[in-house]
């Protein structure tokens, strides 16, 4: 076991002297998650707020046929604009979000007290315009209801006749729970950090040393191969964990400055978040380090190993996407699966949802077992005769 420590110390010392590795581990890896997330949130928030507070630009065709309606809209903070020549094209080309077309028949229908139709031209596939369309529809509905109520009153009827059933909303969602989808993406960036932190060392363990012709002399020493591998895996894991830790810390610090309250979210990034996240990420970092080492062992060169590992980075995206597209109720078996368990736990921690200690323990233990299994498989691969020989 002493040899394992010797290898570990040498790997750590050597890689700390490699500028590129250090930058990846201490800067690039940790900063990825917080930066990307901050950019995302800021863009979303500013866009939502812009839309909600600014006057709604609305091109209107045939404004002369419904002067009262147009006046009412102008009062409701709508900026009436001149009509485009081809409204359908303007909407499809995204020049405008929505166009209101009032037909000439509107005036007649209105004066007869019949339903007067207007056309709202928009593109439902434009998610961006959705807010604007909803706002306009609400305004038009409001105007319609108000006018309808006035007409009933003028005939001596109470408008409340029309409301046979009133529905009172009792929305149980909290700002935290509404923020669900966005948060589900976040744990992936922590995992990505772990990947980046340990990648250089993982490749070096096999492909790198082989390419630099230093693996064969190393194996000529009287140290069983599994001890050499254990030392290298420990070093890889250490670097990966360092990146993950820095990533989580950076994120908590930065997260305090995010204007998430403006869109109704609130994030819990205190000490409990830090400690619990680190706890469940520890065995995952070891698992990732092992997987990277194992995959790199099959590469014939440094370049090839880098390619394989870059592909490997996309594997954790699968559970991330699944969880963000289909928010599901957290069940015990999910905590037991490595990767998925961490995703669910971290997302819940961020939202301030309760996470039982048993879930934390289950995730830790299962991921640790997986890490050991991968390490065992890697040892077998490391024992192969062809390992040290350049292909």
């Amino acid at each position: 076991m002493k040899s394992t420590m010797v290898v570990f110390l040498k790997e750590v010392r050597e890689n700390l002297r490699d500028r590129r590795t250090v930058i990846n581990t201490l800067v690039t890896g940790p900063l990825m998650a917080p930066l990307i997330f901050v950019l995302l949130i800021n863009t979303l928030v500013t866009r939502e707020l812009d839309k909600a507070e600014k006057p709604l630009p609305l091109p209107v065709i045939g404004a002369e046929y419904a002067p009262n309606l147009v006046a009412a809209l102008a009062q409701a903070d709508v900026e009436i604009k001149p009509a485009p020549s081809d409204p359908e094209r303007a909407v499809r080309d995204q020049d405008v979000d929505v166009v209101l077309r009032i037909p000439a028949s509107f005036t007649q229908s209105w004066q007869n007290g019949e339903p007067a139709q207007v056309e709202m031209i928009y593109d439902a596939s434009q998610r961006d315009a959705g807010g604007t369309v909803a706002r306009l529809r609400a305004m038009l509905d409001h105007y319609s209801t108000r006018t309808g109520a006035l007409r009933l009153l003028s005939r001596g009827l109470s408008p409340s006749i029309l409301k046979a059933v009133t529905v009172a909303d009792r929305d149980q969602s909290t700002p935290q729970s509404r923020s669900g989808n966005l948060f589900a993406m976040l744990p992936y960036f922590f995992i990505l950090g772990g990947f980046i932190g340990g990648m250089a060392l993982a490749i070096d363990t096999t492909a790198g040393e082989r390419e630099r012709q230093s693996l064969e002399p190393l194996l000529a020493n009287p140290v069983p191969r599994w001890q050499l591998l254990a030392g290298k895996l420990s070093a890889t894991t250490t670097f990966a964990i360092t990146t993950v830790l820095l990533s989580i810390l950076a994120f908590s610090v930065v997260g305090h400055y995010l204007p998430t309250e403006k869109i109704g979210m609130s994030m819990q990034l205190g000490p409990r978040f830090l400690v619990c996240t680190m706890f469940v990420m520890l065995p995952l970092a070891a698992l990732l380090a092992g997987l990277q080492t194992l995959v790199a062992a099959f590469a014939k060169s440094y370049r090839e190993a880098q390619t394989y590992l870059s592909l490997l980075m996309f594997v954790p995206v699968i559970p991330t996407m699944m969880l963000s597209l289909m928010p599901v109720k957290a069940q015990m078996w999910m905590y037991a699966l490595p990767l998925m368990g961490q995703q669910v736990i971290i997302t819940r921690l961020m939202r301030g949802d309760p996470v039982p200690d048993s879930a934390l323990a289950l995730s830790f233990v299962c991921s640790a077992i997986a890490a050991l299994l991968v390490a065992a498989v890697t040892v077998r691969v490391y024992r192969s005769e062809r390992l040290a020989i350049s292909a």
Partner: protein
Amino acid sequence: MIEVRDLHKAFGKVVAVAGASFVARDGEITGLLGPNGAGKTTTLRCLYTLMRPDRGSIRVDGIDAMVDPVAVRHRLGVLPDARGLYKHLSARENIAYFGRLHGLDEATIKQRTDAAIATLDMHDIADRYAEGYSQGQRVKTAIARALIHDPRNVILDEPTNGLDVMATRAMREFLKRLKAEGRCVLFSSHIMQEVAALCDRIVVIAKGRVVADDTPLALRERTGEANLEDAFVKLIGSEEGLAA
């Protein structure tokens, strides 16, 4: 002492070694001579237990390599054909790393490293990172770290590969010195002058088989040739062996 008996090793369909037997004795320099592809490197790799032979036995100082490979590696100092160093470590640190893997204590490592630096004239590179070493400097460091544990038996795979004239001569003197210290020196080569100048015994290997195992004089007499090169060609059986 290194004893090889009936060594067989194949990689799938490719037969690298097909029944090689020889002995390398203490206090002697034994040369493993043969054309490219003869099975020299594979034989050596089996000796320092990088690979397991399919058949046959290997004994180093009486220890069976299949039974206790770690003990065998303790008794061997190896300079393989692959002799890369760690770029971000100095020569001293490269040597110390291997010393620690051999279980030596720091004081011994320091003392022996200093001795090696003096013997091999490595003062200019001792504390410089290995990145950018010349070929000769790399080989020196690789040898120093291979011998840090003072092994009785030394195996070198094509030791003068890529070395210039002066470095080759220095290597020659170094090997003679190892012999004078009573060690068993076994090196592989396909360079005639080297082998002729150094070896007490020559093991000629071709197509995975040992075709001769004798002193240079005896080989010349046996084949009736005046110089070793012609003797060698006769022994391996054809002119095309050299072109392999």
